[in-house]
């Protein structure tokens, strides 16, 4: 499934907040048409890492290369709008929907990117097919959705920008297990049927392992282990870092 072409190459990324270093030289590689998962409990720097990729936080050091159509673009240091234009879309931690806009309007906000506007109708149909509940709730204010619905809307909104690479920060956060399975199935479908490349962070190891092609484990801002789903599942360290991290 996953090709050998890298879509994203992150090297030695270092970043932090106000003098406190959170990421200590993180290197991650994301292959085309793959699901790559970054595992670790809260407070280990996963969200900070995604924020750096999306431009919400300027890294202190390191490079973020987005490779596409033979060429590659350096994203480190660029602002979020430029990064979105380049084809990378982040579904942020805490969903960050626009609560006073309707579901449909939130989706259309996702299609703000110039090249995505032309395909808004097509993409809208696509995400509503993926998450039929959104079709039903189109006219409802986003703030009034349940948690699971909000997470689906957030992913759907990220897809509306027609990204080359979709970053998802903890898709299972705060969701009931049955909903998690549905969200994970949708993410898998995005890769299998639509060839999308996905990088997501997760605490939810088994669910993520089911669909991931490759995983990294991050502890205190460093990658301590990488491998395929089976290797991660069998690794002793993994158990240790959960709950006792």
């Amino acid at each position, binding site marked *: 499934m996953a090709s050998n072409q890298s879509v994203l190459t992150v090297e030695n990324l270092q970043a932090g907040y106000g003098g406190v270093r959170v990421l200590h030289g993180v290197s991650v590689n994301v292959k085309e048409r793959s699901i790559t998962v970054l595992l670790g409990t809260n407070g280990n720097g996963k969200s900070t890492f995604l924020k750096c990729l999306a431009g*919400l936080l300027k890294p202190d050091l390191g490079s973020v290369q987005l490779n596409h159509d033979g060429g590659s673009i350096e994203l480190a240091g660029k602002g*979020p*709008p430029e990064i979105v234009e380049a084809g990378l879309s982040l579904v942020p931690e805490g969903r960050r929907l626009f*609560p006073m806009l309707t579901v449909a*309007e939130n989706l259309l*906000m996702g299609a*703000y990117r110039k090249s995505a506007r032309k395909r808004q109708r097509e993409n809208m149909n696509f995400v509503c097919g993926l998450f039929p509940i959104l079709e039903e709730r189109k006219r409802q204010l986003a703030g009034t959705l349940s948690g699971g619905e909000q997470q689906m809307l957030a992913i759907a*909104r990220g897809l509306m920008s027609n990204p080359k690479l979709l970053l998802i920060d903890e898709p299972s956060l705060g969701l009931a297990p049955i909903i998690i399975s549905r969200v994970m199935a949708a993410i898998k479908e995005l890769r299998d049927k639509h060839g999308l490349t996905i990088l997501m962070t997760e605490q939810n190891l088994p669910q993520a392992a089911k669909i991931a092609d490759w995983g990294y484990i991050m502890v205190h801002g460093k990658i301590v282990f990488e491998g395929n789903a089976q290797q991660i599942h069998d690794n002793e360290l993994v158990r240790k870092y959960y709950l006792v991290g």
Partner: protein
Amino acid sequence: MAFDLVLESIATGLLVGGFYAALSLGLTISLGLTDIANVAHPAFIFLGAYLALALSQAFHLDPIVSGMVLVLPFYFLGNALYLFYNRAFERRGESSLAGLVLFFGLLILLEVGMASEFGVGLKAIYSPYGSVALNIGPLSLPLRFVYSFVAGVAAVVLLQLFLTKTFQGRAIRAVAQDAQALSLMGAKPATVKLIATGVSMATAALAGGLILAVGPISPYQDRLLIGRVFAVVVLGGSGSVLGTLLGGILLGVSENITTIYLGAGWSLAVSAVILLAVLALRPSGILRR
């Protein structure tokens, strides 16, 4: 007879309400959607009115048409104003409260500028419908108010469509809710606010044309509007375009009824009382749940 009078004042109040909505549109955008408390908005409306007067006199245009002509220049004026505000205050991380300093200063500068440029006396433009009334049954409605009502409602509808149906319009509504999330959609929050301030100022041009159509103007009259536009915006719920229409009508009708029972001298107090009462009781506006 007394009943007819009340009915007529309600009908006129309704018409005035549409006019008030047009005056308040710009403020509901700046205060409600971009968190810029532009107290100078009424002064900009009068700037629009004076420029419309000059245009109408030079090219024999209808004042409302002159106001429309000024919409585009005022849009750019708004852009410039935002750039200045952004550089001088917003980027330094200073609150909207610090911005009040700027707008209070602009208010005074504009007033003095207009007084010295156009004189302190009343100025008016002749329009063929200036003293004509539309008679519907027992009602006699001044045509200039009918036109300004129509223009006001049209502006409300257009703006509502802009804010709900276009990418930029939705971004303007989103920027106050979560500017960072907006940047993740690929929009630059500062650019979105630049456009919003332009649109806000553009409505001042139209409102200026309407004011000129409704009656004679003089500098410093903008002070009579400050309380009114804030009352309309707060009544309708800050940031709600349709709310300005309802807020405007409520204010217009209340003023007219007050005039009948207490006399014209009290009409200015109505908006002040409404504003203070709404702030004290329901600061989010009466139309919001």
